[in-house]
């Protein structure tokens, strides 16, 4: 019999109305990188929460080194050497790196903090594993990549040897992802065991030894990465074949739909400008992608384009009309559709029903209201039509509360609303963020379909696959400027990465210096 460091045997976890984990067995060998693959809602997070002591399973048992253990809370997990890097970091923003690392296990003498001791340990750990951090920097001031290193150091500081990474690459640049992969390999070599939760197949293929696939709460199987392919994994995950290449017709551009001229947007957090003198155009029938690492001014640029925020300089023209100072409603009327970055904050009123959300941009039109009274039957039939057309799934159809819907279906509802609305330009900000491959495929098809109908599409994305596959033209943003214009057909991911990290530029350098 093989030796497993952690075994989760026949785990069943039910929530009211849903079986999140149904008889799942997961066995982790010592020193391996074990990927846990599954769509959103497949039960990955639930399973890891059971292992981490956040939930108790109704059935099944957990063994460590062959002995049954009971994990009632994260402290139990911690004392068994299990550590977790959560998808959303659990850091105290106004504390320093060091304070965050020792939080909960503060070394003390008679109640007085012994920071020196802790600092030495953190520094030696960070040297040993190549995890560069500044112990005295405040969390709110450091990059997302460094925050993640802090999370990793937290686990190491607690001498954990079973490390759970919950979708760790979602927030990283290609270069940072490579670094993380190296760090993970280093841990495995040291004999630490890694559970790696993801739905990105490339990463699994490059770093994992074995992979367990979950689908709809059930365990589909565990495979050796050596003996499998990306296609096979995705089929296991989704239950059908997924095409990775996006089929696109030849590009047929028309008139300029959106013209952005010398736009400057002030930053909210500092005195600098978040967007500096940016100019570009989007034509009808093309997908222009704004690529870049998070926090390089894309969010602020979109806020200025869509009217959520004011710009300090420059002009924006939409379909021939100057909309620089237009209200959000007027931009919408002029022909702007907007899939917002944060679908919970901006895209949906989560406590409203699906039908109320579907008419969120149109409830004021005479189609849906008369003398200020909402025409309920018209709203209902319109919502039903879009739900059918875009395959939005929910518990109670048009009347479901959107809060109760899955992320993918929430996004589908937003896409249905924005695409069905009369528009010339679609601004789609990270439309596939956090979604599974099935939903991503669907959304990409919709974006391309929209382009083929002769609309202009401005796609803002952090996902390199998306940038490369979907767009017709790539604009790279770095520190508030457009530093590169690339053709996805002729460029490579590596080159794109260089532009994104500011190492290379081919646009606006001279003019930038001249000013």
């Amino acid at each position, binding site marked *: 019999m093989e030796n497993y460091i952690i075994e989760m045997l026949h785990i069943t976890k039910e929530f009211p*109305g849903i079986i999140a984990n149904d008889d799942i067995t997961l066995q982790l060998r010592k020193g391996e990188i074990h990927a846990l693959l599954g769509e959103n809602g497949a039960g990955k997070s639930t399973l890891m929460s059971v292992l981490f002591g956040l939930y108790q399973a109704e059935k099944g048992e957990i063994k460590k080194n062959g002995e049954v253990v009971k994990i009632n809370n994260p402290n139990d997990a911690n004392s068994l050497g299990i550590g977790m890097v959560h998808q959303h970091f659990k850091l105290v923003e106004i504390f320093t790196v060091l304070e965050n690392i020792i939080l909960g296990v503060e070394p003390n003498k008679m109640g007085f903090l012994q920071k020196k001791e802790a600092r030495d340990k953190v520094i030696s750990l960070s040297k040993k594993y190549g995890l560069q951090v500044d112990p005295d920097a405040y969390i709110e001031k450091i990059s997302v990549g460094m925050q993640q290193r802090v999370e990793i150091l937290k686990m190491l500081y607690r001498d954990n040897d079973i490390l759970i990474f919950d979708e760790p690459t979602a927030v990283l640049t290609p270069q940072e992802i490579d670094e993380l992969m190296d760090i993970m390999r280093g841990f495995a070599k040291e004999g630490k065991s890694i559970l790696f939760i993801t739905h990105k197949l490339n990463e699994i293929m490059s770093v994992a030894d074995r992979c367990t696939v979950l689908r709809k709460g059930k365990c589909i199987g565990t495979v050796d990465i050596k003996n499998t392919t990306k296609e096979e994994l995705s089929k296991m995950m989704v239950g059908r074949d997924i095409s990775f290449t996006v089929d696109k017709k030849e590009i047929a551009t028309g008139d300029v739909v959106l013209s952005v001229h010398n736009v400057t947007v002030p930053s909210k957090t500092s005195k600098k400008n978040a967007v500096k003198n940016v100019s570009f155009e989007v034509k009808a029938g093309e997908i222009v992608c704004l690529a870049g690492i998070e926090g390089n001014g894309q969010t602020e640029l979109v806020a200025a384009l869509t009217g959520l925020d004011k710009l300090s300089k420059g002009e924006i023209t939409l379909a021939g009309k100057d909309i620089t100072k237009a209200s959000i409603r007027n931009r919408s009327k002029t022909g702007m559709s907007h899939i917002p970055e944060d679908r919970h904050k901006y895209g949906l009123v*989560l406590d409203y029903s699906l039908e109320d959300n579907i008419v969120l941009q149109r409830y004021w039109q005479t189609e849906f209201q008369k003398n200020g*009274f909402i025409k309920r039957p018209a709203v209902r039939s319109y919502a039903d039509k879009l739900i059918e057309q875009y395959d939005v799934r929910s518990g109670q159809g048009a009347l479901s509360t959107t809060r109760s819907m899955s992320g993918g279906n929430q996004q589908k509802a937003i896409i249905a609303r924005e695409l069905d609305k009369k528009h010339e330009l679609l601004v789609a900000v990270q439309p596939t963020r956090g979604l599974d491959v099935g939903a991503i495929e669907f959304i990409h098809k919709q974006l391309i379909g929209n382009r083929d109908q002769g609309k202009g599409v401005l796609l803002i994305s952090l996902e390199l696959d998306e940038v490369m596959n979907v767009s017709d033209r790539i604009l790279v943003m770095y520190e508030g400027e457009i530093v590169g214009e690339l053709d996805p057909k002729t460029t490579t991911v590596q080159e794109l990465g260089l532009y994104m990290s500011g190492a290379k530029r081919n646009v606006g350098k001279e003019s930038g210096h001249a000013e």
Partner: protein
Amino acid sequence: MQNKTFSLKSITKTKGFSSFTAALLAIALGLIFGFIVMVFALPGNSLAGFGRVLFGGFTRLGDVLYFATPILMTGLSVGFAFKMGLFNIGSSGQYTMGMFFALYVGFMWPMPASIHWLVCVLAGLIGGMIWGFIPGILKALFNVNEVITSIMFNYIGMYLVDMLVQGNSTMYISTKTRTAYLPASAQIPSLGIPYSNANIAIIIAIVIAILLHITLNKTTFGYELKATGFNKFASKYAGMSDKRNTILTMVIAGALSGLGGAFAILAPSTIAGSSMTYEPISVIASAGFNGIAVALLGFANPIGTIFSAIFISHIGRGGTLASLLGYKPEIIDVVIAVIIYFSSFALIMNAAFARFIKQRREKKLDTNQPTDNIKKGKEA
């Protein structure tokens, strides 16, 4: 038979039902604690006294309706603003302003009896509107927290009204430190219940509650208002005018409170030749704060607010009767406060209760059709 159970189920499933049952549970809890207080205060008469608190209101139906009217209006005011995510703690100030405007028109603008009281009521509405508008516009244009401005406007309104009343010799009788009796033409027509001040204002208030309910649920304005209350970012994204809606909501909330003030002061007197009076003694009207409790207990729902206002008024009247059994008015106030306080836990109770019901139902569903579920899972 089957039909009957089905319809019962569909009723128990509604949100309103679970809110209602939660409110009842919370009220029961409040009553128990109120009773405990009474036992401690005066054990001998506690049962009889509690009986009066509970049922005394039924013998004074007219008074219950009369005292319910102003707190129904302030409750609607607080609840309505709450739907948009605004906390209108300035209801008292708006109420006082409404009262003053109504008094002023009542004393200073002689008019035929048929319309005088109506004009007074409208004046009250305008007074409240103004006092809601100012915090509203400060919030909308300068993002000044409406809680702070409206608290300050409670004081500003109260002192301003006291000053204006005391400075007006037609309105104020300084020897009695109260306003003079209003002319009969300015008093709202009575409902005709003997020995009570009950008047048609309660009917107007209930109609207003129903109109508010329709506004909130059937109109684009209500749609925008609730959307803003649930998620102001999404409402901004959808192009709704946050500023306009904030001002409008505060104006409406102010108008409702102002009407409450007008209804209270314009109520007909049971003694011919007299009227309700206002005493400018530098005290903030309690009706505004009671409105918060009323709105909480009614889940900020206009229809729910009708019932919670009547309930709180009912307990209050019962309490007054209980004082005849030797309970000091202060103790009665404590008992009523305890009941209201615990009843307001309804909000918390509601969440817990809804969860409980939901779990029960889902468990039942699971056991009812397990094969169905598994089949579905396999197919998918």
